[in-house]
């Protein structure tokens, strides 16, 4: 056995954290800064230093030889990327400092050029469609099935993907949202195979699936399923700082080209706070991730049982799995259906914050999502469950007037890029029926567009927007912040 071990190519040592180590060394050297940032280790901005802490501002430094350069990594950043690639089972990993939005966009911009078709589900995050606006690719939407009771969009069905591939054989890629915000997974392995058989790439928006790489009883990760690229939100379940993210690539992708694509839009002053947080978090996940996420999943399982014991609420879990549109379920997620106590999810979300000082991730028309992670403790979970029990006791209604969330099949008239840059006019909401929208409308979170540029506005969509506004959803996207007007194409394209 000993010999076999020795003959294997040596793997990088996951106990290392090269960026963190370089910053520690750099700090000890007491280098005199005549470079940016101008706060000079915080000395020039005492209020900022008092607020963030000396330790923090002293490593807010610029790229330099001992610390490498994110735009062209050759030393410690490259080593950190190699460690990340090894930890996530990828051919290459890129440290990203523009949020997972930048990872998703780099993925799409790598795969698509102007006019290319890309197959994707409609319930994607706005960052995906933003990338289509930037590069001029054309979306081919695969309509997700909707779970009737919960009113949530599910994963991509194999048959639907196969149909889209057959109808659009020249598409360049299939993008899968895996898992969804609610923890719903598609049959990623099958979709990867279908895409590859058709000569297409398979991209995974894995913003909510960082932990899949470090769990024994969790859905398959994108890299393990053979996907070509994956956008991984380290700052969500991975524990790194907000805005830090990873872009992973498989063996078919040329890393040098991806780097060029990233550098088209990425800052040249990558933050070492963000990069060191990725480095330290990757180390933590590689060394302790399995036990960490086993604990998170156990907490979520416990909370599901307690929430379901209250009555009225439905905290859903693995029982939903149907091996196709719900191929698998991420058990670390705690999503609760609220409509049966006569409250919209967004109403429960607001009551939790306003009355009980509990901030959850989001509420939509019929559900709430409480984000559980490595930072949670049982006592806070008890508070959440008790607060939900109290909300039921104090606020439950017979549900009159509650809208059921329905998937609205989009009518894509022209590409997002054409619509975004076309000549447009602003119309009062109700006057816009039948016109082609030139901007996004979405509730944030979750940031999944209700309307995207290039889609036809229908009265059903407007009903939904007005209902969501009335229930208190935070709406974003349009130029008019009140969303009383929408920008539409000045001229409807010839049918």
């Amino acid at each position: 056995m000993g010999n076999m071990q020795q003959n294997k190519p040596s793997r990088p040592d996951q106990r290392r954290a090269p960026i963190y180590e370089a910053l520690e060394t750099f700090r000890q050297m007491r280098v005199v800064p005549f470079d940016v940032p101008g706060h000079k280790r915080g000395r020039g901005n005492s209020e900022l230093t008092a607020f963030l802490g000396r330790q923090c501002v002293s490593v807010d430094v610029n790229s330099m030889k001992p610390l490498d350069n994110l735009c062209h990594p050759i030393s410690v950043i490259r080593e950190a990327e190699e460690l990340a690639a090894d930890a996530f089972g990828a051919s290459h990993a890129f440290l990203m400092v523009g949020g997972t939005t930048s990872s998703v966009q780099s993925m799409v911009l790598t795969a698509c050029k102007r006019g290319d078709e890309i197959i994707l589900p409609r319930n994607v995050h706005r960052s995906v469609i933003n990338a289509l606006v930037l590069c001029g690719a054309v979306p081919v939407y695969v309509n997700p099935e909707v779970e009737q009771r919960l009113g949530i969009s599910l994963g991509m069905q194999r048959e639907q993907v196969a149909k889209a591939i057959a109808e659009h054989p020249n598409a360049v890629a299939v993008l899968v949202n895996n898992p969804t915000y609610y923890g719903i997974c598609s049959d990623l392995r099958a979709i990867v195979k279908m895409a590859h058989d058709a000569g297409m790439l398979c991209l995974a928006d894995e913003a909510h699936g960082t932990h899949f790489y470090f769990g024994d009883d969790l859905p398959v990760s994108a890299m393990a399923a053979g996907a070509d690229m994956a956008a991984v939100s380290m700052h969500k379940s991975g524990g790194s700082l907000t805005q830090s993210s990873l872009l992973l690539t498989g063996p078919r992708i040329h890393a040098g080209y991806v780097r060029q694509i990233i550098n088209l839009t990425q800052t040249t002053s990558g933050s070492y706070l963000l990069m060191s947080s990725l480095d330290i978090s990757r180390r933590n996940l590689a060394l302790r991730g399995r036990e960490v996420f086993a604990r998170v999943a156990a907490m979520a399982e416990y909370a599901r049982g307690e929430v379901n014991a209250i009555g009225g609420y439905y905290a859903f879990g693995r029982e939903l799995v149907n091996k196709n549109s719900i191929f698998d379920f991420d058990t670390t997620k705690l999503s609760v259906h609220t409509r049966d106590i006569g409250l919209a999810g967004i109403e429960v979300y607001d009551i939790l914050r306003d009355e009980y000082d509990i901030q959850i991730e989001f509420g939509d028309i019929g559900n709430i999502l409480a984000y559980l992670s490595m930072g949670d403790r049982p006592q806070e979970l008890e508070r959440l469950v008790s607060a939900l029990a109290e909300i039921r006791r104090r606020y439950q209604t017979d549900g009159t007037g509650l809208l059921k969330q329905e998937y609205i099949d989009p009518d894509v008239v022209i590409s997002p890029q054409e619509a975004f840059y076309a000549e447009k006019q602003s119309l009062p909401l109700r006057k816009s029926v039948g016109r082609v929208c030139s901007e996004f409308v979405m509730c944030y979170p979750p940031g999944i567009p209700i309307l995207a540029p290039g889609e036809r506005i229908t009265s059903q969509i407007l009903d939904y927007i007005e209902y969501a506004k009335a229930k208190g959803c935070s709406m974003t996207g349009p130029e008019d912040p009140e969303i009383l007007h929408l920008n539409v194409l000045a001229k409807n394209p010839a049918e």
Partner: protein
Amino acid sequence: MEMWFSEFHTPDVKHSIRVNRQLYSKQSDYQRIDIFETPEFGRVLTLDGNVMLTERDEFIYDEMITHVPMAVHPGIRDILVIGAGDGGVVKELTRYDRVRHIDLVEMDPQVVEACRAYLPGNACRLDDSRVHIYFENALKFIRRCESAYDLIIVDSTDPFGPSEGLFTLEFYGNCYKALRADGIMVNQQGSPFYKQDAEAMQRSHKRIAGTFPISRVYQAHIPTYAAGYWLFGFASKKYHPVNDLDAAKWLALNLSTRYYTTQLHVGAFYLPAFLEKMLREVE
């Protein structure tokens, strides 16, 4: 040799007690538990470095948190005690023959173990046949209770540690649900003197006042707590803490006490002007 236990009552105020020796020290799953022997206060129990009780002045706290509700509501038979793993509250409650059932919910079994070993004066009645001890999270325990108790006593630590959940709206709401239609909840409400304590006191009073139709605050002098000045909350669905006091009936029980009297009971609800103002602000 000088040996002192010190506790910060604020970042700028320190309270110190001379120590003869340390009898017990253990880090439990929830907190650090220490018991000291001291010349002035006898044995002292501290949790995470905060004094919970001393042999010398525990009687004030335990009498005031129990006899006030017991003298108001003649029908108290089923009681839920939360926290209070030292046994002091149970010791007072078990003196009433009419009490038939006491559930004690303490998160940390190590506290009970330590007090049984080193504070027998407090823990002496934990084995009373009417007392049932549950080691679990109080929020979880009470979620399942509905119209089950006549009295709930919340004997928590301060609101900045593991007891934080016992100062929340969801907890008070669950207590309301767990009480019968004439039930009473009494809680330790902290101190109104130092700023951080005062703000926490106001927050919890606001939540209680928003949950129960009757919510009043009463006070006691407890030397080893911050500012030596402590408050209790009296929250009730039916009984008024002063108007419904049946002094003659309580006196007929012939219970000897060292701090509580039926006259003091009434007086404890007369509050200083600054405190009345603080409470009014959040009611």
